[in-house]
């Protein structure tokens, strides 16, 4: 069955430190993958997407993600975290017209 797993429910990093959020997927065909961010009281905002081609994808707000087919992973990274990055992050897989989301990772940023 198709699924998305985000192993880390909560992550805390210090401001200025690097960040990596993990995402694993299960899907038999070529995956279309996304990372979204959700701040309190707001909807989901798209950070980046992977459809094909270059496995390192650049997104907004300084985020990037690397697609690794052999590991069925699509991890999100940022070299230096800002306090404003504190939010919930969701990885998602597009199947037909439907986005299948992981359970999310809540990022907290220490000053």
């Amino acid at each position: 069955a198709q699924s998305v797993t985000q192993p880390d429910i909560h992550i805390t990093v210090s401001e200025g430190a690097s960040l990596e959020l993990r995402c694993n997927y299960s899907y038999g065909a070529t995956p279309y993958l996304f990372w979204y961010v959700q701040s309190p009281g707001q909807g989901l905002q798209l950070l980046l997407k992977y459809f094909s081609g270059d496995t390192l994808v650049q997104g907004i707000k300084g985020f990037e993600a690397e697609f690794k087919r052999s590991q069925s992973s699509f991890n999100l990274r940022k070299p230096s975290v800002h306090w404003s990055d504190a939010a919930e992050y969701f990885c998602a897989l597009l199947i037909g017209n439907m986005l299948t989301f992981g359970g999310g990772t809540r990022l907290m940023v220490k000053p």
Partner: protein
Amino acid sequence: DAGVTQSPTHLIKTRGQQVTLRCSPKSGHDTVSWYQQALGQGPQFIFQYYEEEERQRGNFPDRFSGHQFPNYSSELNVNALLLGDSALYLCASRIRDSLYNEQFFGPGTRLTVL
């Protein structure tokens, strides 16, 4: 250019009641999807509407129904509310002609069932 708008922002209902949530897509968008996000979980796909027809449906019972109007706005109806229907309901819109087009999400309607 207004983004995706949803109304109401918050709603409180009791078990057994019916509720209607509304969504206006982003300008130029003609495809609307609805998602349910329970507390502490990722969103789950309910269904998608295009050309006033339900095009794809997730694993939700028939108590969940929808409608799309000629101006592309959409409604989500939930009958016989259960406590477990308490969630944030998100609407997303995109241009239909390509799956590569970004889906834009609204801020959601927070439904509480008592």
